[in-house]
């Protein structure tokens, strides 16, 4: 008790509130997907979360020999992973992804010097190891994010199916393709960009998410789309764009902390993502773009720190040359 030091007030959410808020929003997306497309999905989602908790509990049990509640951030990581891969890929692939994300990403990589998004590590693993299953699942030749979005965009590119960006914003993906292709387009978290955007807004207003990286991601993405002559409407609406802006590039731990760092990282991730979509040597844009920016995070923060100090010193110097300090009035 004697260790309490000033300030004696606390403002804004604490770590647990933040994770709870994220989880609530992700669960809303799950319920929506369940209601509209796949009634079994919410149950599977819940099972995956239980599984993620068990992985966490076992890890602590084996390592420290004690029982502890799973960390809230583990659940968020798991929820993000489950929601950002197509709902119908085999369950054991998702479990493998969860294992990598939770054990390797959160327990091995995260406390170290590398700051990368654990959920993206899980997806990277799935992408590399289960490339085959992704291949068969995706319409061949599509230029878009494979894991994240076997979306109208892909179908349009490969099969010439018509789309309407407005419909996609509303999550209205019951299109002509549904009868033709026995797949459910899009990952569960990504099918209703409007809902995702709303959730992002709520999280921002609760002080849980920072606007900088998300907004800058969209800005960078949009600018690059325009520069590369890609159809902006569909690229913004379809695929993981909005989901990434709200949930992935805002992940606190793996993105820079400083304001400058966030702005820069956001733009960079957006531009890279769009660039990869256009000149896709590999279909998964989001994972590579964001992981790359994650690696740059500490450097961006360092630049910002030095830059701020430089500005402060320059200001002090300018002031001392004002001779006897006659600021404002004589």
């Amino acid at each position: 008790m004697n260790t309490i030091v000033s300030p004696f007030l606390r403002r804004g959410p604490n770590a647990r509130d933040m994770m709870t808020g994220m989880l609530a929003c992700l669960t809303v997306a799950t319920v929506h997907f369940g209601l509209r497309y796949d009634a079994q999905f919410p149950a599977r989602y819940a099972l995956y979360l239980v599984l993620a908790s068990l992985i966490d509990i076992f890890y602590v049990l084996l390592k420290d020999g004690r029982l502890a509640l799973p960390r809230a951030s583990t659940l968020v990581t798991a929820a993000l992973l489950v929601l950002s891969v197509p709902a119908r890929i085999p369950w054991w692939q998702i479990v493998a992804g969860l294992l990598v994300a939770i054990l390797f990403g959160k327990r091995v990589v995260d406390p170290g010097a590398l700051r990368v998004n654990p959920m993206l590590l899980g997806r990277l693993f799935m992408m590399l190891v289960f490339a085959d299953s992704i291949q068969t699942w995706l319409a061949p030749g599509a230029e878009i994010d494979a894991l994240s979005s076997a979306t109208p965009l892909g179908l349009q590119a490969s099969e010439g199916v018509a789309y309407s960006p407005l419909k996609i914003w509303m999550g209205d993906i019951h299109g002509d393709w549904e009868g033709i292709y026995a797949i459910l387009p899009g990952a569960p978290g990504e099918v209703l960009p409007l809902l995702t955007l709303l959730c992002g807004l709520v999280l921002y207003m609760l002080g849980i998410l920072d606007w900088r990286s998300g907004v800058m991601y969209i800005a960078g993405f949009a600018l690059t789309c325009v520069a590369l002559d890609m159809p902006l409407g569909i690229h913004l609406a379809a695929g993981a764009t909005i989901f990434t802006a709200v949930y992935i590039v805002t992940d606190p731990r793996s993105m820079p902390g400083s304001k400058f760092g966030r702005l820069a990282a956001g733009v960079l991730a957006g531009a890279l993502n769009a660039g990869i979509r256009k000149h896709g040597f590999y279909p998964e844009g989001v994972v590579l773009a964001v992981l790359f920016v994650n690696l740059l995070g500490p450097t961006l923060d360092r630049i910002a720190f030095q830059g701020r100090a430089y500005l402060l010193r320059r200001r002090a110097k300018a002031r001392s040359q004002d001779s006897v300090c006659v600021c404002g009035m004589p």
Partner: protein
Amino acid sequence: MDAGINRCRVAPIVQTGAAVAEGEIVAQGESLAMHASVSGVVERADAEQIVIRRGLAPSTVSALKETSCPQNAADLARIAREMGLVGMGGGMFPASVKLGTGWQIHTLVVNAVECEPGIQIDEALILHDTDTVRSGIDCVTAALAIKRRVLVVKRTAANHIGSFAASCAADVLTMPNRYPAGAEKLIVARLDGRMPPAGLLPVQCGYLVLSVASLWAIGRWQLYREPSILRPLSLVTPSRPTRNLLVPIGTALSHILNTYGIGYNPEAHLLVTGGLMMGARATPKTPILKGTNAIFVQPILRRLIRPEEPCLLCGACFDVCPLNLHPIGMVERIKSGRRSPALATQLDECFLCGACSAVCPAEIPLVQYFRDAKRGLRA
């Protein structure tokens, strides 16, 4: 007896057992004198504390022979020293030092911002003891030949105390309601159009920033020749409306708590003097100091006792720092011992407002690191 920070050391000049009257000088220092705030017998007088047991019939002795207004800056500085004036907004910087710097002062800034949540003593002084505050303002303005006066208020108080400004021909500057809008540095930055660099005092820029309570004390001297022996303060408790009191300096907190029937349980409550953001924990034995502008009795928040977690890099501390510093960047460097010019620059700038600690979701005591590191840098 340590009445505050630098140049504030005073030594007792009374002996144990001596009888003193209210207002008599009991300790003397280079920059200020201390006066008995009650009449009675001296029970203890050493470098740490002077204890006066109240006994004699109250009789006021004015230590100050002066009868006329101070004529110039040196006069004012001398009076500030004799009446024992320190910055009563909480800083406790000896006013005689501030006034005696010899810098050309063009603006008197009346700081009524009270950005620390819950404190409303400055507001109360303006509303209920208007004339005393105004005469303090007039006294300082006349002595220093000040051209401009500015009353700085927070937005919520702009309506009801803003009108006070008109009655003493002052401009009004409205600051946002957010802590730490009342910091001298931020006020001067607004008035001046640019942020004063670290290490430069507002007086050196020509701004004399005084809190309402300090001006009120000068007004007391001006009207009643009373030295600084009373402390106006807010008593903030969760269950009752805030009271604003006038307390003799040196009164033990327990006395005040008993008088107002406020229950204090050290297990469940936090007793804080000064303010919830920058104040300090106190015990019932803690005396009221010249800078004690508020007393808080608060239940202990759960978040205050939660252990520190690894930083989430959520960016909240970056967002909230009024000087756009990089709080966690500094802490990382302090922790790892990576001293660099950039770190020193940022540390110098930080004025320990604690806003970053208050928002940290991982409960990292950021400002504590800065406080320690600054001490380390100085030592």
